[in-house]
Structure formats: C-alpha cells, structure tokens
C-alpha cells in the first residue's frame, strides 16, 4: 500500500486526505453565499470556468465556523465527487507523504464529528494520521439522519 496522502490541518488537527482525490490546492478569494443551503456549505467560488462548492470543514466536523469572508485568502483542497467540484477549506496544506499501512480502525474515542468522517488510521513517516473520508465531510453533519 503506497497510496499518497495529502497532509492538511483542519481545526488545528493534522489529518490526511487521499492525494489522488485532490485535484489541486487553491486560495479562495471571495465567496458567493448560498442562502438556505446546509450550514457547512460556505458558498460558491469560481475556479477558472468551474463553479466550486465550498465546504467549511470545521463546520462539517461540528468544530466551529471558519470566517471566510474576512478579506483574507483561505487555502482549500479541490476535490471532485460525483461530477461536482468542491473546495474543502483547511487551515493549512502541509505535505504529501506515502501511506505505510492500510487504514486501521481507531479504537479510542474520537469527537462525534471526527468519528463520522474517519476512514481509520494510517501509518506514515510522520506518525499515525487520521484518514478523512471526503464524501462524508462533503455530506456534512446530519447526513446520517437523512440516510437512515
């Protein structure tokens, strides 16, 4: 298993995203809000001629709200899911490393938000990291209730 992982920090924690799913890392400028959309959908942004749906990862993990329209640039990882492009807001993008193990279940108790998006723990050169399920983070909180 030599999957490449992108290490990012979300809400102060370092986690891993499958690098193959990440198309690019962008800096978001201004956002167009989407009224009535779920709260973790921060808005829309344009990347070249594509519309990105911006997901506030902090909010999706129920760990607070990222202040996006403060005039600063925000880093985000662009992913594609079912033909739609999303920008996942992160605190910082750090590095790309190779996974040294398959994800294994984490048996310690995590926060509810993390629990929902966790695909397990992977070993890397930089120590164990939580592998994040992109689909779950895009779906946001409350998606399980809807699916049930």
């Amino acid at each position, binding site marked *: 298993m030599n999957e490449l992982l992108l290490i990012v920090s979300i809400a102060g924690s370092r986690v891993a995203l499958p690098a193959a799913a990440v198309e690019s890392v962008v800096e978001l400028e201004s956002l167009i809000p989407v*009224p009535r*959309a779920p709260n973790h*959908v921060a808005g*829309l942004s344009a990347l*070249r001629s594509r519309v990105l*749906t911006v997901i506030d990862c902090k909010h999706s993990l129920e760990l607070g709200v990222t202040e996006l329209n403060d005039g600063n640039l925000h880093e985000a990882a662009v992913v594609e899911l079912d033909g739609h492009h999303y920008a996942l807001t992160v605190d910082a993008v750090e590095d790309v490393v190779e996974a040294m193990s398959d994800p294994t279940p984490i048996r310690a108790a995590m926060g509810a938000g993390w629990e929902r998006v966790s695909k397990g723990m992977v070993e890397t050169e930089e120590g164990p990291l939580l592998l994040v399920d992109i689909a779950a983070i895009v779906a946001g909180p409350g998606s399980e209730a809807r699916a049930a």
Partner: protein
Amino acid sequence: MDDLIADFVAECREMLEALGGEIVAWEANPDDRARLDSIFRFVHTVKGNCGFFDFPRLEALSHAAEDALADCRAGRRQADGILVSAVLAVIDRIGEMIAAIDAGEAIPDGDDSDLIDALAPGAEGPAIQAPIAVDVGGKGNATPRTIRLSVELLDRVMSGVSDMVLARNELARRLREAPTEVPVDSAFERLSGIIAEMRDAITRTRMQRIENLFVALPRMVRDLSTELGKQVLVDIDGGDVELDREMIEMIRDPLTHIIRNAVDHGIETPAERIKAGKREIGLLAVSARQSGNQILIEIADDGKGIDGGKLVEKALANGVIEADVSKGLSRSEQLALIFEAGLSTAKEVTAISGRGVGMDVVRSNVERIGGVVELDSTPGKGTRMILRVPLTLTIIPALTVSIGSQHFAIPRSAIEEIVRANGGSVTLERIGGAGVATIRGRRVPEVALADVLGLPSDVRDEDRTLVVLRPAGGDVYALAVDRIHDHEELVVKPAAPAVMATGLYAGTTLADDGSPILLFDPAGVAQVGGVMLETAERGGRGVEAPVATSSNEVPVLLFRGLDGARRALRLGVVDRIEEVSCDAIRPSAGQLRVQLGEAILPLAGVEKPDELEGKVRVFRLNDGNHEIGYAFREVVDLMSIDREVIPADVPGAVNGVTLIGGEPAELVDAHWLFAEYLGASARPQTQLVCRLPEGDAWMQNMLRPIVEAAGYLVIGERDELAADITIVSHGEAVEGDQDGRVLRLATDPDAVDGKDSIYRYDRTGLLLALKSASAGRR
C-alpha cells in the same frame, strides 16, 4: 481483441438505428433496391464479423437472413409482409445479442430455429400483418465522414474554450484600464474574434441532427398500429434540424409518449374512419423546425381529436377540479386538463399508452429543460401538439436580479411579466401575514425573495420590483426582488447535491466577470416560500374582467428600426422574431418580400433595400389570417404604454408617438401595415371601402375605428379605389365625382338636414348608415 469487439458493437448499433426506418420503408415498397441493399449490407457485415469473433448463434441468424435477402436481390423471390416481419424479428434478435456482447456477457444459449424457419419461402408469418405505408423522405442513407468522440473529451474542450473566454474578458478589462497602442488593440480584436468563432464551432459539435430521434419512429408506429389493428401513415419532416445531443435524449421519452398516444387514442380504426368519412389510413405528421433560439417539434394526427367534455368529467371524477370551476372552463382550459396528474381519457388502460405515465409527465419533462408543450385539438378533425424546446440544454436565457448585494438568475421561460410594486396598476396587501399582490385586477400570491432566502435587504416592500412567474405546471405568483439587472444568456451547470437539496435552485452559472451566480427553480422558490401553486388561479379569475377594462396599459415591444428610430409595436400582433440573411429579401411582384422558411411574406420597415447587408432581423406579424414581415435593427425591451398617444397627422406606418420609458417612441400602426402590404390581392372580394378626409383629425381618430370595426377599408381622398361610402364634414364639398353613397356629418345636432346628413355623435345613426351602405352593395 476487446477493442475490435467494441468497434463491432458500435458499428452494429449505428447500423441498427439507421435500419429501423429503412426496413419499414422497404416493406411499403418491396421493389426499392436501395433499401434492400442497405439491409442486406447490415446482415452481411454481422455475418462476416461473427465468423471472425466466433459467435456461432449470431452467425447462423445473420446467415439465414442474408440468404433470404440475397434471393430477393437476385429476383428469385418476392419480398412480402411475411418475409419483412421475419427479417425484422431476426434483426431484433441480433440487436439483443449485440446488447449482451456490449454488456460483456456471453450470448445466452437459445434456439433461433423458429426465426430461421420463418425466413424460408412459404413459411407462416410470425406476426399478423397490417399494411403500412411510410414516407421517410426518399433519400438513402449516405454515411457522412465522421469520427466517434467521447462526450467527456468534448466537454473538456468546451470548458477549455469557456476558460479562454473568461481569460479574454479579463484581458479586455485590463486593456481598457491601461492606455494601449493601436496594434495591440487590433491584435486583441482578432484574438477575440477567433475565440468567439471557436466557441460557436465547439457548441455545434454538441449538436446532433434530430433525425437520430426520428429514425426510430416509423418502426415504432408500424409495430404499434399492427398491434392495434390500425393503419397509419407517418410523414416525417425536418430531420436535418440540429439540437443539442443531451436535449435529444431529454425529449426522446416525451415524444415517444405523445406518438403512442396519437396512435392509440387519436387515430381511429379503419372502420371508424370510413364511417367518419375519412381515408382509412390515418396520417401522423411529425416535423421539426427551428424558430429563433427554439426548436419546434410538431406532432399532428388526423384522428378523432380530444373530447374536452370527457376530460372535464374525468377530472371531476378524479377530484382534479371542483364542480363549480368545471362549468366556466373555456375549450383551451378543458384541453389543458390533459396535463393534470391522474388523468387518462381512454376508457381502459391499454398496454400502449396507459402505463401510468401521463401527459403530466410529458409536460413536466419538457418544462424541465425549459420547453413548452402546446396543444390544439378539434373534435373529429385531429390533434396537434407542439413541443417548443430551447436549442441547447445548457444555455438558458435568464434575468438577473439582486437581493442586497448578491445576484441571482431567474429563467426567462418562467417569467410572465415584470411590474413595479409601486406602479399604478399594482397594489400590495397583507392578508393574515401572507402577501397578496393585485396586478391589474388579478390577485396573485406574493413572496419577497429576501424572506425566502433569509437575506437582509434594506429595500422597502413598495420599492421592490415584482417578477410574475409561472413555474412549470403551476400557477402564477409574484416574486418581489430588490433590483432587476439584465437579460443574459447563461451557461448553466447543475449545482452540488447539497445546494440542490434546498429545492430553491436549478443550477449554477458564471457571470461575465467570472463570479458564480445561482439560478432559481421558480417552482422550488414558490414551495419554499409557502405559495400554493395548484388550483390557486383557475377559479380566481373573477376579479379580472371588470378591472381590466379600466386599465389602458398596452404591452408593446420597443425596438429600433433599420433607420435607427425608436418604435413600438403592440405585442399582440408580433408572432415571433426571425433572423434572415439579406439574400432572402428581394423585390418581387411589385413589392419587397422576404422568404421565411417556406413562406414568402411582404416586408415592411425597409426604406432603402439596397443598403441591407448581412443578417436582418424580422418581426413576423400576424393578424390571424395573414402574415407580413417587418424588418428592424434590434429589440430594446418589452414595455407598456401608460401614457397618451399623440396621433399622427397623416395615416401611415406610424399612428402616433408616445413616451415609453421616458423617451418618445413611434407607435407602429399594424392595421395600416396589413392594409398596405397585403394589397388588394389579399383583400376579400367583398371588402367595403370608405373614404375619409385625410387631414381631419377627428375623422381619423374618432370615426375611423368605428368605420373599420364595421368592416370597411378606410382610404384617403386621393386614393383611387372606388369607395362604397364617402364621409365628409357638413358643409364641405365632395370632391370630384364620387361613386357610392355620401354621408355628411354635422358638428351641431340642429344642423342635420336630409337623409344623408347625420349628427357626428349619433352613433346609432352612423352605424345604421354604414350598414345600409354595405347592404346596398351586396
């Protein structure tokens, strides 16, 4: 090897599609060598490839069909209905096997000997035959030089071109800001031109001839009519019209359903048709044509038509409408019931069309892609359905509006009208917290977009603009927005599921400056805003009539003529706008005429025919019987006349001026245009002519409408037509030797003397005189 099989499957698919129409046409005319050849070529190709790929079952089938067809080609055997059905059955079986190969499955074991036996001379047919004749436009199937491309690649090229357009816009902005040299500007101009051209070309690659949709119809109708014991002649026209490929897929099901309905419910059995005095073969005409940025697909049958009364009964029985509402329905409203959910007029559900998929689904499918379904039916004569769909799925004409600082788009197709909340004909009321707008006497539910979206807005209710919307399949409501911005053609893409889940939006798009805009789904906005769309309007027309008469706002189309003048035309007379090349305009038979499709119409609005170049836009004006064209430069806007019209002194193409949008505009006199341009030829033989003094404003403005309403053609003193009646002011001499009757109008009731003299406000007397003159003529 896999690649080769994939190519084989693709090739067979293509041939199979094209073959559906060919084989039926061949049956209608078994001597048609070209069709026989193309069917033969298909089975021959399949047979050849099967040997190579080792598909024994396919090979045996195609071999048998090839043998039978070879006999026909050599003249050893006559093609008959039984053979055609047998060959059809074989081709269907081949299609199933090819589908299996495509899916990567092994061809299931099975016995094809029944089909092979049916091909033998003198065999019993596998199906009952019904004679059927098909007209698919005579030409054979010439394969154009093409390559297959994945849609994905095309989409990538398309988005590359979109990026290029955005980059160009950005560059244009920068160039405007900084002073540049002329060579730089001209190089940029050239680049712009090339990019625009490329965008057009790439958009066209997504286009497909609608033939792809039509080619399967003859076969479908044949099978259907055989099953139902009916005889149907299919007439297909306009297969070369091009449509976005995704659009073609979207209208495939609605079209199929409408045709099934037409054959099943519309066209009668031969016996019924003969009884009704019609030809025993029913006619089903399917045609496509382009009109502006829309494609019109028309499906017309000459069957028994739709029984409006039955529809009403059914709607009552199913609880779709209330009993008191049903009585006041007009014929078109009765027909519109067919689009309500849960209605099917057939007495019993047949396998053909009553599968729970009703016309309501057809309409909502068509409306989902921004189209409209129109229905027209005459009992005993037939039914005509027209699908109007936009040219491409992704480009939607939209109106941009804003709340606070954020922009949104509303699809144009749903917009009925736009009014200011503080306008004279509009009142806003709150009834139990709900907004109700009364627009020219019509009460419509009103919602403020800012409330629906939960956005802050500093615009007061009465300063907002109301956009009156008619969502797909629903009734009107008014949406109050802060500001209206622009009409734009937007390239719409679906939004992410989380955004779509709000129910408010139909998609996203990018504005010219590259920022995203959300496109509303008008039905969704109504739902979220708590507006009841169903049945809200049908019974609520009561207040309309009395108030409407007191309102004299007339909707007009404001445009610039070829000479640059601001003019307005009453919207009612404009049928549609077409763009023609100036070659289509030429003087013939004494006046300027324009060719629009297959019609040649007299053309007005052109002062200097020699100076026309490039494309010319033309209004198509319609008076119900005749059409004429009116050339113009550009449409400015849809407006309404709310001010006084200052009448023109002399009758002519312009009947007055008025202020529209704060600036004067000439009001085009459609009546004069028709009278002038249709000329004597189009005038009915019995047209009565009345001569009125040209210089008399009272006569022209007050009297003329009355005279015209009485069926007279009004002419001036110098006109050479013979007048049936001549009207002059009292005391004025009648010029020259007037034929017909002379009527003198007095300004003073006391001055009336004699039989032909009438007080000018004696309306009854006037009408009587006009009538008696016409009676004398006949």
